[in-house]
Every structure is written in C-alpha cells, then in structure tokens.
C-alpha cells in the first residue's frame, strides 16, 4: 500500500452466460483470450504495472479455478511484502449470515472490513472481464487534480451504439452531471468503462447507506453513482483512448481475438513497457511442420502446426494436423484438429478434438460457430 495508497477491487463474479459452454465450468474472467492469456490477466497486469500493490478479487460464480488462478499473485509480480492478490468470495461473518453478493456495490460493501484493514485513501473498482491496457496511476492523478470524489473512466463510442452502454453526460469541465444506463436517446457518446476511482471515505459512507436501503439493487451504475450525483458530490470523467473491449458474446470474443491479427492493433501485446502477465506453462516452443502453411496468424508456444492456418488465433497447445485447414477461426488451449479437417469461422472451445476430415463452421455464417463438443471424424 506504500506506492499510491490506492487499493483495487476487481469484480469477477459474473457468469457471462452469453458465452454459453465456455463459461459452464469457469467464470467469464477466467475465459482464455489472445493465445496465452485469461481475461482477468488484463486488469491484474494493469494493476501491477500501475504500481498498485493490493488487489482484491471478488469471485462468486464457478470460482474454484478462478480462485486458485488469481491467488498465485506472483505471476503478476504482486507478491512482494505488503503486496498481494486476495480472493474474496462471499463469506459468513460474526454479525451477518452467509449471503451471495447481491450486486456490484454489495460485493464491495461486504468487504469493507478487508478494505479498512489497509486504510487506503482511494479505492479503484474494476471489472474482471474487460480487455484493455490502462495506467491507473494516471487516472488517479486526474482524480486528484480535479479534487473529485469519484472518477469514472469513459470511452467514446459510435453514437448509434451508445444506447448499449451506460452513458455519462458531462459539462464543459468534464464533470459528470447525469448518468443514464442504456438510454434510448443518448445525449452523449461517452460510455462508462466500469472503472471507478473513489475517495474511500466518501464511498464507505455511501455503501453503508446503500446496504440499509431495501429498494436498492446494490449496483454501482444503478444506485451508487446516482446517489453520489444526488448528494452533489464531484464526479469527473476520465477519457480513455485506446483499445477496450467487453467480450460478452461468442462473436465479440472471436472478434477481439481477430483484432490481434492487425499489425498495428491498438492493444499491442508485444509492448515491453506494459507487458500482460499470465500463467507460465512448460510447453515446447511452437512447432511448424514441413506442410505448415501460415498466413496472418497469432500463434503461441506449445502449438504444433502441420496444416494451413489463415487469419486465425491458436492458443497454448493447439494442434493442427497435416492437410487440416484453419480459416478465420480461434482454437482455444489444447484443441486438436486432426488430419484433413476444416475449421471455418468458428471458435473451438478448450480441449475439443475435431476428428479426421471433419468440417465445422462455414465461411458465410452470420454468427461465429462455437464448437464445444468433440466432433467425430469422417472416414
């Protein structure tokens, strides 16, 4: 807590049910992305790179894998003295019954004791399921320059898509005057990224009041932000420029992976000054066989390719047999595509095997096909 007296809490309890089978066994933040990462690596690495030492991860849905994954704080360098990643599922307390987190704000409220034990000046609240690189130290500097009670990161979205987001309406000084959740007729195109910095004392009071309010949804967007505005607190917008993606659906997860194929993509995972850290695997480097035919691809260690890979992303340990074709597709960790099989416009889930000569997906489909079960070969 010595570096900037800001503690981070990552909301990682969501199921992400629109990702279908991908989140049957794991929570959305633990879903694989970009060849070797999991989505939660992004907020965790951003914290580590921004000089935040203490990170709480609020887990709920299918949290076994996520808990053990984030608990190894050393992966992100968050393992020094007075530093750490703390897994915070709902827990039974002396003065309260065991209860699930009823909303994003309630997840923080139920951990006020944990936050107080570090007596931070600021609390950073993050989503565990967004893909972006951001220096939170710069956002904190903005928060302090504006003398704000709360700072909300916003990103400009195309006007016609604005009604899908929580929209912040600001005055000429960047102060937030109104917040509208998914407005039918948006007045601005500044979408909330679900990244908040609060002055902890102010937020603490609000959370305690919110806990007692029987009508509240206990949600940051629906309850806490409007309550702060009603209380005439100073809320400012922090404009973020760069890559940011909330991968809610199979289509958008596929698209976010495809974005990496652009040589000048904004995410730039190869930037040595802002690395994204993840689990270390003991696989071989990638092997490209005599019949490998690679064009526009993103391939990581442990892959063994002896077929055609075009416009595709291959995750750790994916194998592509001789004569197989992978086109416009994403192969998640451990996928095996056997000889002669063809995969087009598909996202193949972890460890799925596609048998010899089988064909999945189609070049002109409207949506990306999710392949989550073994596909038998064609003799």
């Amino acid at each position, binding site marked *: 807590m010595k570096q900037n007296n800001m503690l981070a809490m990552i909301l990682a309890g969501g199921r992400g049910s629109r990702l279908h089978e991908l989140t049957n066994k794991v929570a959305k933040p633990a879903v694989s992305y*970009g*060849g*070797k990462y999991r989505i939660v690596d992004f907020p965790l690495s951003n914290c580590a790179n921004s000089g935040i030492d203490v990170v709480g991860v609020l887990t709920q849905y299918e949290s076994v894998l996520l808990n053990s994954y984030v608990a190894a704080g050393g992966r992100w360098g968050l393992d020094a003295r007075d530093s750490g990643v703390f897994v915070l599922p709902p827990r039974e307390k002396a003065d309260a019954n065991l209860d699930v987190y009823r909303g994003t704000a309630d997840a923080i409220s139920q951990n006020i004791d944990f936050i107080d034990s570090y007596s931070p000046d600021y609390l950073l609240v993050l989503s565990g399921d967004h893909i972006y690189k951001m220096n939170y130290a710069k956002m904190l500097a903005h928060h302090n320059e504006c003398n704000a009670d709360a700072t909300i990161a916003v990103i400009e979205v195309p006007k016609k898509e604005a009604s899908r987001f929580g929209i912040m309406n600001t005055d000429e000084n960047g102060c937030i005057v109104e917040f509208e959740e998914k407005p039918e007729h948006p007045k601005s195109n500044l979408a909330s990224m679900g990244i908040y910095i609060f002055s902890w004392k102010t937020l603490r009071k609000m959370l305690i009041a919110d806990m007692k309010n029987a009508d509240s949804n206990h949600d940051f967007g629906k309850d806490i932000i409007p309550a702060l505005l009603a209380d005439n607190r100073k809320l400012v917008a922090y404009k973020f420029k760069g890559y940011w993606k909330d991968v809610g659906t199979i289509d958008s997860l596929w698209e976010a992976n495809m974005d*990496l*194929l652009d*040589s000048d993509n904004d995410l730039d*995972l*190869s930037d040595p000054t802002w*690395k*994204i*850290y*993840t689990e*270390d695997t*003991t696989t*071989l*480097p*990638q*092997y*490209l*066989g*005599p*019949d*490998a*035919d*690679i*064009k*526009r*691809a*993103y*391939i*990581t*260690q442990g892959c*063994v390719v*002896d077929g055609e890979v075009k416009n595709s*992303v*291959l995750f750790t340990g994916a194998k592509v047999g001789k004569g197989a074709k992978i086109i416009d597709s994403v192969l998640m960790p451990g996928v095996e595509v056997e000889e002669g099989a063809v995969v087009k416009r598909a996202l193949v889930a972890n460890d799925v095997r596609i048998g010899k000569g089988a064909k999945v997906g189609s070049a002109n489909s409207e949506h990306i096909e999710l392949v989550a079960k073994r596909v038998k070969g064609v003799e």
Partner: protein
Amino acid sequence: MCDALGIVSFAGNHIWVEGLHDYRPIAAFSFLGRYRIVDFPISNMSNSGMDHIQVYLNAKPRSLIEHLGSGRHYNINSKRGKLHMLFAGSMIDHDMYNNDIAAYMENLESIAHANQPYVIIAPSYMVYKQDFRSLLNTHIESGADITLLYHSVDNAKDAYVNCDILNLNKQKGVLSIEKNRGNAKNRNIFMDTYVMRKDLFIDLIKQAKKTSSLYTLSDIVSSECGENGSLDIRGASHRGYFAAITDFKGYYNANIELTDYSTATSLFESNWPIYTRTNDSSPTHYSEDGSAKNSVISNGCLIEGTVENSVIGRGCTIKEGAVVKNCVILSDVTIGAGIHAENLVIDRNAKLTKVKEVAADEGDPHYVKRYDMI
C-alpha cells in the same frame, strides 16, 4: 524424494564452442529458442524428486545467474529445496587450474554438509532426458561403486568432438575412459554423468587434488577403472535423445535436428516438463506475408518474411521479404527487409539490415556476433 545431492558441472577446459562461448558459459547458451542448456539437467533432477541441487559456475556467470535466479521456476520446493550457485576459485576462462576438482575443493564443506548419502553429477553442456531416480536405483541394485551414464552412437567419427568415450566389458564394467579421437564410428559416448556415494565422491576429490592440480573428476575416475583400479565402475546405457554441446557444429546441429517434431518427442515428454524462466512475451504474430515451415519459433516474434528449417528465439523480427533458412537465431534479433540469411547462428540482439545476402555453405554454419550490425 530422491536421496541424492544434485551437482550440475561445467565443461572442462578442452571444450570451447566458438563464438557463443566468448560471452557466456555453455550452461547459459540459448537452446531451441526458449531454453538454456542448464534447464535440462536441472529439470531432470527436479522431475526425479531431487530438491537439493548445486550448480557450479567457472567463468562469466552473469547470464547464468540471471537465468537461474531464485530457482523457483524449476519447481523445487521453496522451503525444503535449494538451488545453490557455487563458484570456482579463479572464475577465469582458459585458466588451466580452473577445473571441476578445484571448484569442488573450494566448496567441499557445502558438499559434505548436504544430508543426502548419494550424489548425482550431470553436465551443463549436454542435452538429454534421464530419470535420475531410476538411475540411482540401478546403481544401488548393481552394488557398483560408481555408475557412469553413456550413449551408444554410430557417428563418433565426425560428431561428439571433445567428448570422452567408455570402453566396456561384456558385463558393462568400465575398462577405461578415453578421449574420442574420431577413429571409430561406433562408440559409447560418456555423458559426464556419475552416480556414487557422497563420501566416495569427497574421497575422489581429495585424491585427485593430491595426485595433480590438473586432474579432473574423469581423470581420477579413469585411474580407478579396469584391472589397475580398486573400484567397481559400471556403465549404464541411456536411451532417447542425446546431444553434446561441445563444439560449434554440435550446437548448431542439435538445434536444427530438434526442429523435427518426432525427434523432439524423444526429448520432451508431457510427464517430464523442461522448466525455464518465463519472459512474459506475447504470442508470435505472422503478418499477411509471413510464413514458416519446418521450424521452431518462440513467443514474442513478428514474422513478416519467410522462415524455413530454423530455430527462432524470443522477440525476433523477420521483416518483409526476408528469407531465413537453416539458421539458429537467438533472442531479439532483427532480420531486415529483403535480407537473405542462410546457414547461420545469429547471436542475440544482432541486426542484419544492410548486406543483402549473408549466407554460409551448407554443413559449415557461420557465427554472427552478439549486438553485431551487418
């Protein structure tokens, strides 16, 4: 658990790998892109349940110390286990007195102090997979004083330069250890790997020191072999992939032959991970014109040109129109647009951008220096 102290030894003074060796010991040579040679003996020991490992350093230790660090990445128990780096007395290359016995003498107390009754000594300049637990069991069951690991080869005439060979009798008793002079094809190459009781090891160190200040461990063990010797010394045969990084060609060939996936599976098995230090680099990006075949490519690269029959280290950039063939490229190398590179070992951070054609003859690879600009 395995009741043996692990010792990772350094190469003798007769071994010198042209080029790369100027900057680091063989143990720290990059291998197959993401590994260092020393990862192999340490992973073998770690996977065999040995949790007390001593790595001996005799010269230019910087890159090796950086790579080994706390040793946590080798999956050694962080409380009960130890990965020790121990230094030779002189730390000077080409110093004839700077040999293994001198380094063991310097650290005799820490060897004596270890709790394990046995010692397994493996070199940091050879690449192989070996379960040391089963080797120790073989040693104990045989009742031998010393067990030496060897690999039978049929190409000792032109490869395995600077290696020793074992002459064995029919019962696998070691008759003698001698230099490979390249005068026969079929030889038992000694893998510089020893199993013995720790007290015998300490006696041999002292005896070697008393006999000659140039005596190495293999010299003193050799003097105990055969009819004149007083010890029962036996060979144990190794199966699977084996490479000796004892000369420049040996280094190049080992890398290139492992670009064949089926050859690699005789070294890498899923139940026997080879650990190394992570670099947190992103996956490798192939652009519209990037392509690769018959190659091993590490993470963090940008491939815009063509790569064939090569090993590419971490963080390399192969620009548009560049052609890389039969090369072993270490980390962070740039091959500029339109450059043709063939039959080369390119050391880290080198940049090939100006001269259009940098090629050596097949079978006679050339070396490009670290941080060199061509």
